[in-house]
């Protein structure tokens, strides 16, 4: 298992460096802007009031832009579920199936490594890579914060990263589970990615249209605190998100234990043929039978 963990981390080092440096640069830039935005005070509020109400409602916390938690939410945590969600979904959709589709898994699994060790070793590698990326982002907020008036402790900065991590884990493990069930990793990635973006939009739209509230409460991003976790983490929500991730992981693991390792698409499921397509394929009409 440790060999697979190390191997996964080594393969993800490019993503860790790319995402880590990219987000660090962005965060440092955002931190340096904070003193200017906070200094604008009522001027910013007056400016935002010009925007249509629906637009302000969509972004929810935009009127709190001159508070630390509002600023963190708007400029980082609000949409980081989507940005880093793309990383998590992409990485998990191909965590095992990517190698399977390339034919690499065939040789790896001919070595004395159990399916369980392979599964958990790779998943642990993904989790570690995600933690490294979030850790770099957190340090990028914490280190320069004092100079720009973002007067939060390192714990307060850390708190919103916990729900973010839980959301990334949830969408990542959903992609992993779907990759075990759907015919290709790409399909699993697209399905989960589509769900993630739809959920993000739905949460925003639910702020405008109250009729959507009952639906949105069944989606993961409804339980995402964003930058407001600075004031305190909702541990119940966090535990719920993590519990769902655990269910997805266990289902994916159970499925991986039982399925064939595919080569060239063998063993994938197909949609059942529609009746008219079946007739066309056999060349037999309904009346001639």
């Amino acid at each position, binding site marked *: 298992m440790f*060999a*697979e963990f*190390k*191997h996964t981390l080594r*393969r993800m080092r490019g993503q860790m460096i790319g995402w880590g440096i990219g987000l660090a640069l962005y965060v440092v830039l955002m931190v340096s802007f904070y003193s200017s935005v906070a200094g604008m005070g009522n001027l910013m509020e007056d400016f935002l009031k010009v925007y249509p109400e629906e637009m302000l409602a969509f972004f929810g916390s935009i009127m709190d832009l001159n508070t630390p938690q509002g600023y963190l939410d708007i400029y980082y945590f609000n949409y980081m579920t989507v940005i880093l969600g793309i990383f998590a979904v992409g990485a998990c959709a191909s965590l095992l199936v990517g190698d399977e589709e*390339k*034919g*690499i898994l*065939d*040789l*790896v*699994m*001919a*070595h*004395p*490594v*159990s*399916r369980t060790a392979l599964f958990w070793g790779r998943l642990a590698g993904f989790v570690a890579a995600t933690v490294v990326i979030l850790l770099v982002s957190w340090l990028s907020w914490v280190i320069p914060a004092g100079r720009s008036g973002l007067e939060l402790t390192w714990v307060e900065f850390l708190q919103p990263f916990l729900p973010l991590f839980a959301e990334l884990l949830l969408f990542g493990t959903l992609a992993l589970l779907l990759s075990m069930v759907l015919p290709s990793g790409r399909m699993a990635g697209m399905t989960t990615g589509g769900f993630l973006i739809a959920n993000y939009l739905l949460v925003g739209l639910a702020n405008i249209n109250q009729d959507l509230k009952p639906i949105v409460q069944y989606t993961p991003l409804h339980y995402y605190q964003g930058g407001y976790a600075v004031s305190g983490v909702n541990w119940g929500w966090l535990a719920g998100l993590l519990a769902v991730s655990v269910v997805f992981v266990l289902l994916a693991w159970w499925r991986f234990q*039982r399925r*064939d*390792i595919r*080569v*060239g698409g*063998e*063993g994938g499921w*197909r949609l059942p043929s529609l009746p008219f397509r079946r007739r066309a394929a056999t060349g037999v009409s309904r009346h001639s039978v």
Partner: protein
Amino acid sequence: MSEKAALMTQGLMKSYGKIRALRGVDLEVRRGEIFGYLGPNGAGKTTTIRCLLDLIRPDGGTVRVLGIDPQADPVGVRARIGYLPGELALDSNMTVEGALRYFNALRGNKVDWDFVRQLARRLQLDLKPHIKNLSHGNKQKVGVVQALMHRPELLLLDEPTLGLDPLMQHEVYHLLREARADGATVFFSSHIISEVETLAERVAIIRQGVIVEEAEPSQLVSMAMRRVWVRFKEAVDPTPLAQVEGVTLLSTSNNIAVHLQVEGEVDSLIKALAAFPVSDFEIERPSLEEIFLAYYESSDKEES
């Protein structure tokens, strides 16, 4: 199952949807032998090997590898096996050495690295380049090295010399014979008949998911039809020759020469010829290729 069997399958069945890849494969490979698994593309060779490794789960039948059920103890089986897949795919961003060290790590870092270097030297494989920069043949060499490097008890090789030049093919044959001399069992699939004829001590021919023949290559040859040309010192009546069991008279040339077809062994014919004034005698030995093709042609005719 025999105690001496390195691997055994009984009634092995596997389907992919409506395609029945294996329809009851019965195989027994003895410990310490080189066994050739012969069949055209799509006959079920790779599916059989992947069932032995628990990469795919059979729909029915029994599998034992080195006396172990691969589904019950896959790690235990794989620890004692060296495998070379038919369509070898490696992580292209790794170096050759990096890939081999990764495989070694999966085996608990038990491999003697001097032996790895020795194998690489014999196959003229450079350990430094990235996999993505290797030719198909050099990638295949990486596959051969990783299959042999831990000195496995059983080698499962799916088309082992695919993409190798003739010199390297012969080096692989040497390596496999050496592994066998050290006590390993070699089970390899191929559709290259000359390779099977050169290397294998016993052969199984698979066709559409069923074993149609299992024997030593020489037995297969002796069981097959062969043609015999006989020239006599003087004109003779060839009728007694045509009455020998398994012999058919194809043609005569002024009763001075005859062209015969013999099914099975030629012993009876030679004894019958002792009564004739023979001046020349020639047997055309069928190649394994002809036998192999005969199996497929006869099966196709049966189907049609």
